[in-house]
């Protein structure tokens, strides 16, 4: 792939640039630290591209406007942080239920509540999974660099379009605010999911046969969109078999495309004794440690970094647990993903959480020190 000159880019900026590269032309949002840069960049760039930027009256309205614009046929994005992300939850559930594609960015900050607005944390992992009510599926990406932010945002837009499913980009303050060198391919060299322009004559918005493209409003297909359980034409139903089928449908599409959605990366020893499982900015500290321990000192250690948090990389974790004696899970919270690791490790490895929740990053030294207990 031909790549242009390296550039210096901020994480939040990479999110906006990735979205634009993937065809996003509508942004609705509300100011909140530490995600505001995404909005500011979209406000500067979208009008030049003929797109729409709108600052809404609140976070709830932002989420609603994004869904409205998606139904109009635009690719959409909204960005927020902790408190604002909480406010968006009801309408995120609506988008899941009505199968409206959109990408929601949450640049995590220290919570709960107003917390420490400028301090990094990874406390929203479970909120991205279960923030909205009901038994819903969700896709969540967690980048560990500016480069990954760019590419995962494109992947988020693509998957969201293809599966008609909201996708959440879960950044943390460190990744959102840091600037680093990235290589961005020329426009046109990126893999961007095309909109389908051939609509079958018997098109149904929620075809029981499976995935079906969204035909925007205004093109003569008079269907109904609702947050109520609905039949394949979108009309409300409370009929138990249809309700069950509808829930199976929205979960089933993620299961079917699971391997396209779940992204992880392993570096280190082929037969590791100790493996670190990390995501977001914590990956960087872990990688510094593994590079030294494995690349320099040939110790039996490895790092499984999770770019996808939800659906949880169950198979990958289960496989690692069979190899390793110990799995260390560093997180900038009181322990969230560690529960999932435990669940899928099935007792095959000792699971050791490493938690930090004082608003600072976990340092490589902290991980090294813990690692030293087994090596």
């Amino acid at each position, binding site marked *: 792939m031909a790549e242009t000159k*390296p*550039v*210096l880019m901020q994480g939040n900026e990479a999110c906006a640039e990735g979205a634009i590269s993937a065809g996003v032309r509508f942004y609705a949002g509300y100011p909140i*630290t*530490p995600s505001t840069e995404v909005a500011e960049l979209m406000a500067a760039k979208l009008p030049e591209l003929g797109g729409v930027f709108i600052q809404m009256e609140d976070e709830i309205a932002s989420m609603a406007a994004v869904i409205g614009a998606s139904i109009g046929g635009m690719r959409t994005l909204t960005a927020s942080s902790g408190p604002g992300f909480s406010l968006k939850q009801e309408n995120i559930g609506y988008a899941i239920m009505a199968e409206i594609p959109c990408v929601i960015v949450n640049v995590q900050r220290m919570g709960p509540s107003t917390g*420490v*607005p*400028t*301090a990094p944390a990874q406390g929203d992992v479970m909120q991205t999974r279960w923030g909205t009510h009901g038994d819903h599926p969700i896709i969540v990406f967690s980048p560990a660099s500016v480069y990954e932010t760019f590419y995962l945002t494109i992947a988020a837009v693509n998957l969201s379009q293809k599966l008609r499913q909201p996708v959440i980009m879960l950044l943390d*303050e*460190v990744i959102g*605010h*840091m*600037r*680093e*060198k990235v290589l961005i391919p020329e426009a046109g060299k990126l893999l961007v999911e095309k909109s389908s322009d051939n609509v079958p004559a018997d098109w149904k918005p929620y075809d029981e046969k499976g995935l079906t493209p969204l035909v925007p409003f205004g093109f003569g297909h008079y269907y109904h969109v609702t947050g109520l359980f609905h039949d394949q034409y979108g009309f409300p139903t409370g009929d138990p078999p249809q309700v069950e089928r509808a829930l199976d449908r929205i979960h089933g599409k993620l299961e079917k495309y699971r391997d396209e959605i779940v992204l992880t990366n392993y570096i280190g020893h082929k037969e590791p004794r100790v493996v670190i499982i990390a995501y977001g*900015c914590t990956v*960087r*500290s872990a*990688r*510094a440690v593994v*590079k030294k321990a494995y690349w320099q000192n040939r110790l039996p250690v490895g790092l499984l970094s999770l770019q996808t948090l939800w659906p949880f990389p169950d198979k990958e974790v289960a496989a690692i647990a069979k190899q390793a004696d110990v799995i260390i899970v560093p997180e900038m919270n009181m322990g969230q993903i560690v529960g999932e690791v435990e669940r899928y490790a099935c007792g095959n490895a000792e699971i050791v959480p490493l938690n930090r929740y004082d608003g600072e*990053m976990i*340092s*490589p030294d902290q991980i090294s020190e813990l690692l030293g207990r087994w090596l």
Partner: protein
Amino acid sequence: MSNRQEVLLTGAGGQGLILASIILAEAAVNDNKNVVQTQSYGPEARGGASMAGVIIDVDTIEYPKVTKPSVLLCMNQASFNKYIPKVEESCIIIVDSTFVSGSYREDYKITALPITQAAREQLGREVVANMLALGAINAATGLVDREIFRESIFKLAPKGSGELNQQAFDLGYRLFNEGMGQNLGISSQTPQ
């Protein structure tokens, strides 16, 4: 990891340290190096203390935060008092003697330069003190190729101020070179 250079720019909000850190990072990218730039946000960034870090390395940079500065810039007294005790002896320290005074241990490599004063008196604009500081840092460390650095300044400086900012950068070089010649140091001279 021996190639890792950690630069910490400290001072007060409004002294242009964040922009300076971004320009330094941009220059390093243009010089084909790996770089990560971070900064302190929040109430600290609103008029009070300001801090930005730039890590430059030929290898991939993993941990993005500055932990052992190899270069420290202090643009006011508060930052000088706060950060000096935290750095190692090998750290190259540049202070703006316009705002910083006091005597410190001789074993620190402290270079005191009248950065803001020179910007004001020789270029007529205090706001370019940040570029002057970058010139002094680069003169002291050779972090980035000088010409590439100058080009990066021109590119990122506010419209119409590219040349002035380049002049400030060059003046920083001169100040550092002259300052070293005169053995100017904070421990041997107390600015007024």
